């Protein structure tokens, strides 16, 4: 029965043990709200790799996937705020989900997540197939102006970061596309590579692992370090800035000093050069944000997202 033992250790590492003076005196659970193997998992595992010597106790990754992360985040905000459970959060997911949730449906609220720190950024960009007739953003926009709604745009689902990016782009340019919401990158990526859709409003992370595709523009202020050949949308005359950001958060009433401990520990990991190399290798850019900065960022994005959704008539 040893294997049951192992399984139990993994799942019960965060059991209710009396709190001692020293924090942390037992392993800290890191809740990953997407399935193993996804982008969230990879960035958490990369942190886990470097916890030795920085965290006094190990970090235990526990998966709680479902409903685009909503299940996991709801579990996180309902957990005991003792600093022994933290979770990965994605912007704009944690902002959009409570915003568009139907009446009567239970679930977490954005304010119930206490920001610990920002970890990585992943800018949005527009991708077409290598064989596509659109060689640049101008041709793409001219054609979509001539054929409104006839160009299909893949995303990783309704009310995701990709959808947000699509809406921002549509609003800034006045163009109209037909969104094809695939269930995750695992389906959206092959859809573009197989020319099932005309373009893909994607994350740079997806773009960096694809072959035979062309990026028309990236939604950042300056060119993106990991894809320096891709022109920004801004330099092509479209003022759209849209990125995804990943960070960590804890349940709302977690003690301040514990948040501080976690924030500092992650800061130390973020400063390790090998960590930086590893994160870039998986197609993300490390970008540390303190608890306060991250909190302000979330606030700002919330306002921004509400504006965009209002413009598109999602709130009556």
């Amino acid at each position, binding site marked *: 029965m040893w*294997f*049951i033992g*192992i*399984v139990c250790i*993994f*799942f019960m590492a965060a059991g209710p043990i009396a709190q001692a003076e020293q924090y942390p005196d037992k392993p800290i659970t890191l809740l990953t709200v997407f*399935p*193993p*193997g*996804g982008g969230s*998992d*990879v960035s958490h*595992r990369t942190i*886990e*790799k470097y916890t030795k010597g920085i965290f006094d106790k190990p970090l235990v990754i*526990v*998966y*709680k*996937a*479902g*409903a*685009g992360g*909503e*299940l996991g985040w*709801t579990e996180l905000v309902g957990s005991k705020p003792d600093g022994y459970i933290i979770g990965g959060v994605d912007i704009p997911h944690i902002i959009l989900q409570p915003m*568009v949730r*139907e009446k*009567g*449906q*239970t*679930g977490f609220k954005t304010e119930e997540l206490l920001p610990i720190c920002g970890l990585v950024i992943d800018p949005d960009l527009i991708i077409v197939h290598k064989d596509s007739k659109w060689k640049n953003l101008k041709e793409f926009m001219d054609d979509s102006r001539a054929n409104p*709604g*006839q160009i*299909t745009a893949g995303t990783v689902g*309704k*009310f995701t970061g990709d959808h947000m990016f699509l809406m921002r782009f549509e609003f800034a340019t006045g163009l109209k596309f*037909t*969104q*094809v*919401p*695939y*269930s995750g990158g*695992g*389906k959206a*990526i*092959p*859809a573009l*590579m*197989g*020319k*099932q*859709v005309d373009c893909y409003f994607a994350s740079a992370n997806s773009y*960096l*692992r*694809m*072959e035979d595709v062309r990026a028309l523009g990236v939604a950042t202020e300056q060119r993106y370090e990991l894809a320096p050949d891709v022109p920004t949308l801004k330099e092509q005359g479209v003022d759209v800035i849209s990125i995804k950001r990943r960070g960590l958060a804890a349940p709302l009433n977690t003690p301040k000093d514990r948040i501080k401990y976690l924030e500092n520990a992650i800061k130390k990991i973020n400063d390790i050069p090998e960590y930086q190399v*590893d994160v870039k*290798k*998986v*197609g993300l850019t490390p970008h540390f944000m303190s608890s306060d900065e991250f909190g302000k960022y979330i606030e700002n994005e919330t306002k921004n997202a509400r504006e965009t959704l209002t413009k598109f008539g999602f709130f009556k």
Partner: protein
Amino acid sequence: MNFDIWYALKYLANPATLLCMAFGGMFGTLMGAIPGLTGTLGIALLLPFTFGLDPTMALLLLASVYCGSEYGGAYPAILINTPGTGAAVCTTFDGYALAQQGKAQEALYLSNIVSLVGGFVGVIALIFLSIPLAYFSLKFGAPEQFWLAVFSLTIIASLSTGNMLKGLIGAILGLLLSTVGMDPVTGHNRFTFGSLGLSGGINVVAFIIGLFTIPQAFLLLGKEGGESVGEYNPRKGVFFPMCKEVLRRWVVTLEACVIGIIVGIMPGVGGNVATFIAYNEAKRISKKPEEFGKGSYDGLIAPEACNNAIVGGSLIPLLTLGIPGSAPAAVLSGALMIHGLQPGFKLFSENGNIVFTFMIGLFITNLIIVLLGTPFIRGFSKVLMVPRKFLVASILAMGVVGSYAIRNASIDVVVMGLAGIAGYFMIRFGYGVAPAALGMILGELTEEGFKLSLIIGSAKGSVWAYFFARPICIVLIVLTVLSLVFAFYSEMRAKKKKQNRNSVEEVSR
């Protein structure tokens, strides 16, 4: 691809490598053998332990877990009618029937041998055909997904020959239940009654565990339970006769492998569907389709060869395009990235040695698992000697632990329990649980394929053309029609036979 064959051989001859693969294989077998504990979970559990290993070793260890889990799934399916993984559902049909006839050992060896064949064929495809197959998988869009799901739905007819109406009712129940939760396309919640747990949908694995394990436990408790579990009668010299059986049935075996590979490379379709198709095709080409479900060797070979061929198949898009073809392959892709390897074509050119060693290693892993499988078979067969009351208790306990372990959600345990109670009545009243399981598996695939096709089709001007004029769609539609015609034909034949038998009985009376 540039690689050094000596590097690969030297690497694989290292005892540490072999030990790693053996450990991974055994761990995977155990994970597969416990309902609910899957290869996906096994890989995720071992991942942190690979940080200290070099990437090749880490990959081999984790891939061995994946291979092992596909072997392990067959053990409880055959011995106690409880599929250890979703891909082992079809194994229960004939495997358990064989066990009831006292042929548990034959069934277990047979499953191990064809699993080896399946694993080998899968890896051969991975080595020699990965690039053309990867490009083929890209042709598979939303309408193809829809038609594949429709084609797979016709399998219900042959799963319930002689009782098609009840089969249909079961399947529709499964399909309906699969619509609970978030709409895959619009993101709106349906039938969740405000419960967040349900907005993630009814978990397919929990549903299947409940559907199969709970009724089995109840049946074992009943008066007629005595016949439910086979006898334990260990014999020697079963292995080689079983090898011969496989050789005699090479057509079925190969066909199942090919189906496993093709469905395995489709993004997001999954192994559960493939084994159903393989089982159905085996039944169709069989000369004795009436033996299926009653202990046919063909009926056991098909799903088992198929679910191991999927391993190779699902690694093809992962290694070439960076897109995992199945849930365990997705975890493997995460592992690749954590070890600093970006899945995709570049992997072949930049890390040819690692990829090549990994592929050759998969052969060896399969061999190791089969070699070590012999003591496993002896050990697991002893389950049949366990007194029934203990067996029932442990089946129920495994069901609860397993369904909770899928995603650490208590709602899944509730789903498992309710599905179990429903399953018991479905079996009692002759509906069977397989059609409901298939309906559940296919529900989301059908719906998503249909809705996305509608969206793309209407943007492109013609929904009809989009659904009916694509080459792969046409092939799938033709297959669907043929499958239906065949199903009605055999239904009629089965009915006629029944009438004949009845009239013969009347005469002899």
